[in-house]
């Protein structure tokens, strides 16, 4: 009997190893496809720029962007700050706004989804805030807080807060009735069930919300920096336009894209850690 179950669990492990191997293979394939996609895109871009298909006033060659990238690492001209400073300034704004949105939006959504009374209390306020486009807060925050970090962080906050709240709210609402009953029969209090059953059940959608939120935060950041800033990637793009420097504009866009990618990969990693049970 013991022997039997041992071989059974061994077989199980072998099976899991095989599946993981196959999964790794598809992962490698996917990465290669993605890399060749990017290379192809850059190639077409280069051809379009070199062949004169597109007026060189409107487009810069990929290599020029790489050059400018290196130059901008140390040269504050023409927008007044080196690339690193712009990146840090943008990150500071977006991460503080986004972080605040997650820190407030997610728990608020979870509590509203679980406690009906709290939901009734909060809902009207939320329903009023929800449809307001985040950028329409910009003039008000300039009046209140000037054009510093705080003002922009608040705009980013509004953009990221809504998806955080809605998704964790919906997620916890979908908690299985049976699982709640399981916890009840174990003698759990409502708050314990909220923590042990509700929150884990809500995690999948919560992460979906956080991903939407980071996208929103990043997008809104650029808009905010174009209107109210003295540094940052959005500001750099704006200056590029004013000085007629298409290469600077494109560099800004590329850097924004690259950082966005890195951040969403980081969130994916965190998600894998929390929702790792779904894989395997």
């Amino acid at each position, binding site marked *: 009997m013991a022997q039997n179950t041992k071989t059974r669990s061994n077989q*199980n492990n072998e099976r899991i190893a095989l599946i993981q191997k196959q999964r790794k293979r598809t992962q490698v394939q996917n990465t290669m496809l993605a890399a060749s996609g990017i290379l192809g895109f850059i190639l077409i871009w280069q051809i379009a720029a070199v062949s004169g298909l597109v007026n060189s006033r409107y487009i810069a060659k990929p290599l020029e962007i790489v050059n400018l990238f290196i130059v901008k690492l140390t040269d504050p001209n023409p927008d007044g700050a080196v690339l690193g400073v712009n990146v840090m300034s943008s990150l500071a704004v977006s991460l503080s706004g986004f972080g605040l949105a997650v820190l407030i939006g997610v728990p608020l959504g979870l509590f509203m989804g679980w406690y009906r009374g709290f939901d009734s209390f909060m809902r009207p306020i939320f329903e009023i805030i929800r449809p307001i486009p985040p950028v329409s807060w910009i003039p008000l925050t300039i009046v209140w807080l000037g054009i510093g970090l705080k003002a922009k962080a608040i705009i980013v906050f509004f953009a990221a807060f809504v998806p955080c709240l809605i998704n964790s709210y919906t997620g916890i609402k979908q908690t*299985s009735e*049976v699982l709640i*009953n399981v*916890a009840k*029969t174990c*003698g759990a209090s409502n708050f314990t069930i909220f923590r*042990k059953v509700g929150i*884990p059940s809500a995690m999948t959608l919560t992460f979906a919300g956080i991903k939407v939120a980071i996208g929103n935060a990043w997008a809104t950041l650029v808009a905010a920096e174009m209107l109210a800033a003295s540094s940052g990637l959005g500001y750099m793009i704006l200056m590029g336009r004013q000085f007629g420097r298409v290469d600077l504009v494109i560099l800004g866009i590329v850097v924004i894209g690259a950082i966005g990618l890195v951040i969403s990969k980081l969130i994916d990693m965190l998600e894998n850690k929390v929702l790792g049970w779904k894989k395997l």
Partner: protein
Amino acid sequence: MPMDKKKVKLRLENISQSYVVNNEVRDAVSNVSIDVYDNEFLVILGPGHCGKSVLLNIIGGLEKPVEGNKYIDGVKFTGSDKRIGMVFQRLALMPWKTVMGNVEFGPRLAGVDKATRRKIAQKYIDLVGLKGFEKAYPHQLSGGMKQRVGIARAYANSPEILLMDEPFGQLDAQTRIVMEEEIQRIWQQEKRTIIFVTNNIEEAVYLGDRIILLSKCPARVKQIYEINLPRPRNTMDPEFLRIRREVSENTDLAL
């Protein structure tokens, strides 16, 4: 030994439940009184939507009856109770927890320290035949294995009474037969008072010390059968078939 000499573990007294649906009162359970004996395997048999789950949820304290009383060992109680555990029909495992995590859930909530609750959980994981699968997640398990986890989890709370609401209703016929044998073996190894709900006559006659036959909605006690066949029962045995026929003639199992 005649049943009425046995100790009454759980007593249900005039339990009734009704709901208001579309401004109409709809009775789901009507005036049910049952005595459940200590360590008995009691089967509650009734057609679909007759109020079996409602009755079981009332016993387990998941809902409050509009009328009636519940007693354990002669002492009245209300709501849920640590002495009553439940095995559910489906989707009852936490997908984010391993087999071990699911089984030790109850003791963990009760504040049992890690070493002790691991030992308890391991005992029941072994009992239900899942040794070697402690680290597996529910979605890696078959339907039968998931139900085994559900049974182990209910046992891990060390209840005196176990409620099982059509635990094998979602399984295919083959697995169901295996699980019927298994639940019998488990119960014989670790005696508890079991109240097992089903709409399957053969399952009822195979498992029950007694069968409480319920009527169509609202649920009323229609008939009580005592089954004294030795275990494990042979479903081809003439006496088994006779009882089975007798029960089915009396049942309105319009499914």
